[in-house]
């Protein structure tokens, strides 16, 4: 068997391909994104970026209904968006196979919250598998598909960031080509969820869960490893590895399926060990159920509720002592920042000048909240900027006139911005909405979406026109600007904020990663240190290429007044966006090629 180093995400895609899964829909979101990207490159599969997770799940439900093995792929908060179809597809069942992949993010490496999506499995009465490394990720996607077909139920596959983004050794197998099971099947009692039908299916769901309960007892991936019985540990997913790393000799009940739990197996395991622990990140999901069985168990009493674990956390919890390590030396923090040349920088610089309150959204531009730009003032979830701007504007009335702006990225707008924008036209709003259109889903690593004109599998397609859409929704004042032109941007912002009624500004400038060709012939800007007055206006852009150098001896520049220091441009980082050139009032910033 050929062995390969694979991330958990790549292994899921590989497992799906090997098992004859030919259909996947998803929306990008860290840490799930690479599953769709890797899957889309296999031969003979259909894979699409849907505009959001709700659509992705509905698309996958349709494919399963048509007889295929299908998956819907999303990050943990994406399941919130997809929750509406999720709860009812649990009733209808799937005909073919349907697996929903939820990639959770303990420690919020790249998310706005730390929700534990195991709760969705219980809530929606859907079985859930949880792999602990890449080999299991590849195996478990196959098992999940099989469970889905066997029990006519959607199945969850849950990963966490550490499973999705760790790499480990995976044995590759040849893909199996099943028979063509595509079908059009009419079965209204099963698929038309009017109350009379749904009441019947509701009972079927409970019966299915009973069967799954029974099945879980003999599921080989729920396994006991009986060694030293002084301590027994029930665990699943990545936590299993952390525990095995520090306590290789204790006994384990390693759960491959976290919902439903194998009660008999848990009772047997508990009876074999002296002291019982549950090691699980985030919520006491397993622990509470074990306790409800009347079994004494230690869990969150010694392990944290928040953040991901590591082997040290597990060791401390069970040995009940803190490691007395001294803290590392204090060093300046290094938060992520907008890239040099990022079009969002020009927009937020100009927006800052208006002193408006900016409801923000999810994407690279969220990073502008930091000093010095401090460009947006809220961030809740995908699409929230528009509804919130409208709500604030309505609440403030005259007091908020010309002071409320919502900023949303292009991909985020397609995901969840269209309905709230329609609402602004319908309910006569007075806020300004800016679509920060950098022509890609940048934060997750450059994925296409319905306004880029290209599909996930690289086909040319229709390209959504934001300005035309805004007009059709009923927004009368629609402007398109280039955000790297500060003068124009500032002028348009001022005009639109002064108008009655809602406005949309499409701030259109491609992400720097889409400008590979232009970047080949960059002529970086430089600071004429004899002219720089040390006014620090350019530092207000927060560009990583610009830094402040302290003047050693309080020199006087050629142009006059004594200064404390001067600006400097790192030529290796400058991409000639010219923003610093535009804001400099001393004419100190020069380019070999002139302003672009």
């Amino acid at each position, binding site marked *: 068997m050929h062995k390969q*180093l694979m991330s958990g995400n790549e292994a899921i895609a590989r497992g799906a391909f090997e098992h004859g899964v030919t259909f996947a829909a998803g929306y990008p979101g860290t840490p799930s994104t690479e599953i769709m990207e890797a899957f889309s490159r296999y031969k003979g599969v259909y894979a699409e970026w849907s505009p959001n997770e709700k659509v992705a799940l509905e698309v996958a439900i349709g494919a399963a209904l048509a007889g295929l093995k299908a998956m819907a792929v999303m990050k943990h908060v994406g399941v919130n968006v997809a929750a509406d179809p999720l709860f009812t597809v649990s009733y209808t069942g799937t005909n073919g196979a349907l697996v929903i992949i939820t990639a959770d993010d303990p420690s919020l490496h790249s998310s706005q919250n730390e929700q534990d999506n195991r709760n969705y499995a219980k809530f929606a009465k859907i079985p859930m598998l949880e792999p602990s490394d890449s080999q299991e990720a590849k195996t478990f996607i196959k098992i999940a598909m099989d469970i889905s077909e066997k029990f006519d139920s959607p199945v969850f596959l849950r990963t966490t960031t550490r499973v999705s983004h760790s*790499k480990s050794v995976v044995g590759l197998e040849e893909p199996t080509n099943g028979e063509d099971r595509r079908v059009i099947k009419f079965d209204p009692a099963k698929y038309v969820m009017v109350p009379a039908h749904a009441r019947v299916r509701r009972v079927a769901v409970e019966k299915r869960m009973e069967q799954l309960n029974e099945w879980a007892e003999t599921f080989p991936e729920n396994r006991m490893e009986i060694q030293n019985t002084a301590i027994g540990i029930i665990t699943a997913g990545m936590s299993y590895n952390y525990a095995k790393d520090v306590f290789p000799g204790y006994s384990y009940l390693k759960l491959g399926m976290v919902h439903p739990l194998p009660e008999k197996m848990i009772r047997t395991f508990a009876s074999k060990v002296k002291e019982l622990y549950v090691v699980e990140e985030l919520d006491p999901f397993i622990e509470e159920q074990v306790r409800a069985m009347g079994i004494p168990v230690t869990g969150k009493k010694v392990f944290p509720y928040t953040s991901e674990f590591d082997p040290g956390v597990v060791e401390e919890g069970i040995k009940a002592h803190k490691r007395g390590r001294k803290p590392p030396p204090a060093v300046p923090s290094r938060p992520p920042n907008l890239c040099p040349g990022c079009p969002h920088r020009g927009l937020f610089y100009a927006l800052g000048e208006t002193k408006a309150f900016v409801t923000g959204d999810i994407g690279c531009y969220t990073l502008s909240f930091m000093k010095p730009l401090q460009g947006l003032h809220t961030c809740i979830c995908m699409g929230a900027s528009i509804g919130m701007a409208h709500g604030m504007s309505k609440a403030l009335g005259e007091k908020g006139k010309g002071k409320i702006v919502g900023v949303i990225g292009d991909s985020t707008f397609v995901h969840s911005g269209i309905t709230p924008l329609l609402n602004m036209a319908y309910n006569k709003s007075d806020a300004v909405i800016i679509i920060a259109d950098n022509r890609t889903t940048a934060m997750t690593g450059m994925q296409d979406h319905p306004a880029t004109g290209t599909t996930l599998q690289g086909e040319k397609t229709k390209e959504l026109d934001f300005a035309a859409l805004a007009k059709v929704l009923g927004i009368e004042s629609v402007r398109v600007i280039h955000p790297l032109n500060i003068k124009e941007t500032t002028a348009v912002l001022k005009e639109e904020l002064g108008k009655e009624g809602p406005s949309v500004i499409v701030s259109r400038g491609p992400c720097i990663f889409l400008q590979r060709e232009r970047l080949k012939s960059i002529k970086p800007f430089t600071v004429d240190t004899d002219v720089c007055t040390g006014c620090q206006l350019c530092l207000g852009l927060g560009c990583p290429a610009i830094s402040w150098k302290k003047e050693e001896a309080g020199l006087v520049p050629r142009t006059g007044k004594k200064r404390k220091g001067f600006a400097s441009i790192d030529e290796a980082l400058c991409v000639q966006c010219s923003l610093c050139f535009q804001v400099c009032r001393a004419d100190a910033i020069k380019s070999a090629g002139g302003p672009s």
Partner: protein
Amino acid sequence: MKDSVTSLLLAGVGGQGILLASDIICKVMMKAGLDVKKSEVHGMAQRGGCVTSHVRYGRKVYSPIAKEGDVNVLISFEKLETLRYLNFLTAGGRVIINEEEILPPSVNLGETAYPVDAVDIVRSQFKDVLVVNAPALARKAGNIRAVSTVMLGALSKYLLEASPDDWKSVIGKEFSEKLVPANLKAFDLGRETA
């Protein structure tokens, strides 16, 4: 074959080639017949923020990340980032430092100062410290972007599980044909410094 797991931690800044470097280490150790796991965090971290990658290898590896105090070699691609992860090192651990400085935003804005004595702090706590001028060696090798391969060259001297040829055969496959000669040279130059 020894039973214990060796833990490496690569640290630096987005864009320095850390993720590819840790992939290469894993593939070299796989060639040497060992189990390997690695872990890093993608996403927000790519926009100029800190990037770390854990690499662990041995007969059987469970956790892809090491606990604090368990790392055998810290390979720091940026000088001040070394300090941020010092507490991951085991007592008597080894440190390889690229002396390049990449200024964090607060230093750029003049709000904080870049620590001038970073290497001294490291030396005061650890005996085995190697400081490498990786950009200079990469330039000498013919490609300024080969900094990460210089660091791998230096590291390779201390990882006795694999021979220079093991490393070179993996490097030969991981880069596009055009970039291979400069990266092989960078590997040699890095190895010579160790």
